[in-house]
C-alpha cells in the first residue's frame, strides 16, 4: 500500500508571531494544506501531531491540537519527538489500512519561552549533567569540536554552510533569516562556545506546518517511498556518547533508501540547528563518496551543485523551529520539487538540538 503526500501548508517562519497564538498559527497552516490538497476537513480521518510539552509550557499538548486543524471527534495522537518522526507515524498508521487520509501537524512558538536554555536543562540527566547547568549550545559545541577533529574539516567549513544556507533562503518567502553573507562575516560574529560562532547557530523561530497524507492515489501528488528512524545515543549520560558524529543517520537513511529502492537522490533537506549538524548528517548519509567538507568546499552542495543540500535555506536561513523542523523540511521539499522539477529527495531531521537520534524520509514526485 503506497502512501502519498496530498497537500502541504505552513505559516512562514518569523522571529515571533506576537499577534497570533499557536492555535491561530496552526489554523492558518491547516487551511493552506486543505486548499493545497483540494479536500475538505471532513475528509480527514485523524491527526498526528508533534510537540514537546516542556517547549510549549502546556502539558498534554496534543489535547490542544484537533480543533484548529479539523480533527475534532477524530483519531488524535501525539509524537513527542521531531515532527519528521510524527510524519513517519502518520505513514505507518495509514499503512495499517484503518485510515484513508491523515493530517500531520506541528508548531513551534519559542518566542513564548522566556528562558529557553533553562527549559532545555529539563531534558538532561538530573544527577550527573543538570547540576553543571550546560547551555544546549555548549553541548553542540562539544559535538562541533569533535566533528572537526574527527573529519579534518576546519571551522571555516562551518561558516561556508551558514553562508550557503542563508543565501539559498533568499529565494524562500517562508524564511526568516535569509541574507547575503560572507564566510568572514560569520567568522567575525560573536564567539558563543568555541568553535561555534553566533553565525553557526540557527536562530529560533515561530512556525507551524500541516501535511496531508493519503492512501488515495487520486489525491496523491508525491509518494513517500521510504522511511527510517534510529536512536543512536546512549540514553544514560552524555559522556558515553559518540561525539562528533550522528550514528542514527546511516541506519535511518539506509533503511529509507532500501525501501525506496534507490541509491541517489536529486537533493537533500536536512534540519541543521547548527552548521556542523548538516555536515555530520551528510557524513552519515555517505551517498556522496567524499568527506562532506570537501564536497562543500567544491560547491557540490550549492544550488547548482551535483547534490544541492538545503535549497530551502535550511534552519540557518529559515529559522530553527525546534521539533517542527522535520515537517518544515517536508514542506520545503515538496515546494522545491514543484518549483525546480527535481524528482527525488532525502529528508533528514534529528529528534532535537544535540540528540543522536532522528528520522529519514525519501520522497519522489512520481505517483
Amino acid at each position, binding site marked *: 500500500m503506497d502512501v502519498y503526500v496530498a497537500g502541504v501548508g505552513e505559516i512562514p517562519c518569523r522571529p515571533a508571531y506576537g*499577534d497570533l497564538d499557536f492555535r491561530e498559527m496552526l489554523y492558518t497552516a491547516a487551511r493552506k494544506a486543505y486548499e493545497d490538497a483540494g479536500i475538505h476537513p471532513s475528509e480527514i480521518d485523524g491527526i498526528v501531531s508533534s510537540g514537546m510539552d516542556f517547549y510549549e509550557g502546556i502539558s498534554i499538548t496534543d489535547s490542544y491540537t484537533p480543533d484548529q486543524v479539523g480533527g475534532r471527534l477524530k483519531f488524535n495522537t501525539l509524537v513527542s519527538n521531531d515532527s519528521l518522526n510524527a510524519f513517519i507515524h502518520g505513514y505507518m498508521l495509514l499503512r495499517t489500512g484503518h485510515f484513508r487520509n491523515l493530517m500531520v501537524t506541528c508548531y513551534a512558538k519559542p518566542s513564548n519561552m*522566556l528562558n529557553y*536554555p533553562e527549559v532545555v536543562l529539563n531534558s538532561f540527566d538530573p*544527577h550527573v*549533567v543538570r547540576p*553543571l547547568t*550546560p547551555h544546549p549550545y555548549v553541548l553542540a559545541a562539544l559535538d562541533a569540536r569533535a566533528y572537526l577533529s574527527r573529519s579534518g574539516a576546519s571551522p571555516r567549513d562551518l561558516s561556508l554552510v551558514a553562508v550557503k544556507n542563508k543565501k539559498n533562503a533568499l529565494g524562500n518567502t517562508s524564511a526568516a533569516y535569509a541574507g547575503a553573507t560572507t564566510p568572514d562575516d560569520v567568522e567575525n560574529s560573536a564567539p558563543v562556545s568555541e568553535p561555534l560562532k553566533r553565525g553557526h547557530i540557527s536562530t529560533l523561530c515561530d512556525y507551524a506546518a500541516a501535511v496531508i497524507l493519503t492512501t488515495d492515489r487520486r489525491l496523491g501528488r508525491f509518494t513517500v517511498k521510504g522511511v527510517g528512524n534510529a536512536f543512536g545515543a546512549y540514553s544514560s549520560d552524555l*559522556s558515553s556518547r559518540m561525539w562528533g558524529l550522528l550514528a542514527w543517520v546511516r541506519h535511518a537513511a539506509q533503511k529509507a533508501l532500501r525501501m525506496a529502492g534507490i541509491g541517489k537522490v536529486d537533493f537533500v533537506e536536512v534540519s541543521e540547528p547548527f552548521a556542523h549538524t548538516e555536515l555530520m548528517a551528510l557524513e552519515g548519509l555517505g551517498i556522496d563518496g567524499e568527506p562532506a567538507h570537501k564536497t562543500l568546499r567544491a560547491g557540490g552542495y550549492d544550488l547548482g551543485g551535483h547534490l544541492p543540500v538545503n535549497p530551502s535555506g535550511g534552519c540557518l536561513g529559515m529559522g530553527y523551529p525546534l521539533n517542527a523542523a522535520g515537517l518544515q523540511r517536508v514542506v520545503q521539499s515538496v515546494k522545491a520539487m514543484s518549483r525546480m522539477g527535481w524528482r527525488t529527495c532525502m529528508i533528514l531531521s534529528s529528534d532535537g538540538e544535540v540528540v543522536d537520534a532522528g528520522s529519514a524520509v525519501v520522497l519522489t514526485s512520481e505517483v
Partner: protein
Amino acid sequence: MRVKPARYSERYLAQQPEDVRRAIIGLELDKEFGRVEGWASSLNRKYTDTDEWRAENLILTYWRIACRYSHAAGKAATRFLDGLRDGKILGTKCGRCQRVMIPPRLFCEWCFRDVDEWVEHSGEGAISTYSLSYIGTDPGVRLEKPIIVAVIWFDNTSKKSPSSQTVLHAAGLLHIVDGVKPENVSIGMRVRPVWRRDGERTGSILDIAYFTPVDGGVG
C-alpha cells in the same frame, strides 16, 4: 539514600540577572520546596525587570510556576553519588564484555544482563571533546571569561571496534576544566579531578570541583 530537595546551585544563581536572582532568593526558591508565598500574590508578582524579556506589544499571560522535583537517584547513581561524597569515583563493570561504566548502571545494554561488579577509578583520563563557553543557561548572561566544558574519558575504559578504531564506549564524565589557559586546552589533554574538601562534599557531581591537567597546567 534519601535525595535532598532540589536547590538552585550557587553556580546557577550566579548566572541569573540580578533581579531574577533577587526574586528567586526573595521567594525562597533557593531553599526548600513548598515554602513559597500564596498563589495570588505569587502570580501577581512582577517576574523580571530585564528589558529584553519584555514584550510590550504583546498580550501575554504570565504563568510563573516552579516545577520542582526530587528525583530518586536509583541504586547505581545513589552509590555513585555516595562515592563522590567520599571522594571516590565508582563505576560498574560488565563481566561479559568487560566494559567499565561510569556513571554506573546496574545493567549492560550491550549484553543485556545484570551487572554487579563495582570498580573504583582515579578519574584520570583524557579530554575527548571540549568547548570554551561564553554563555550561561540564561539568555541575558554573557560570561566575560569563558568556562571550559569538556567530556573526559577515563584511562583504560575505552572499547574500540577492531575494524575502524572508532570508540564505541568509554567511561567518563561531562564536567568543567580549570587551572589551564583556555587556549592551551586540546583534545587528548590528560586531566585529573580536583575534589572539594572533606566536609564540603554533599554527594553531588559538583563534589568534583573541576578537572585540571595532570601536569599541573600551563598557567
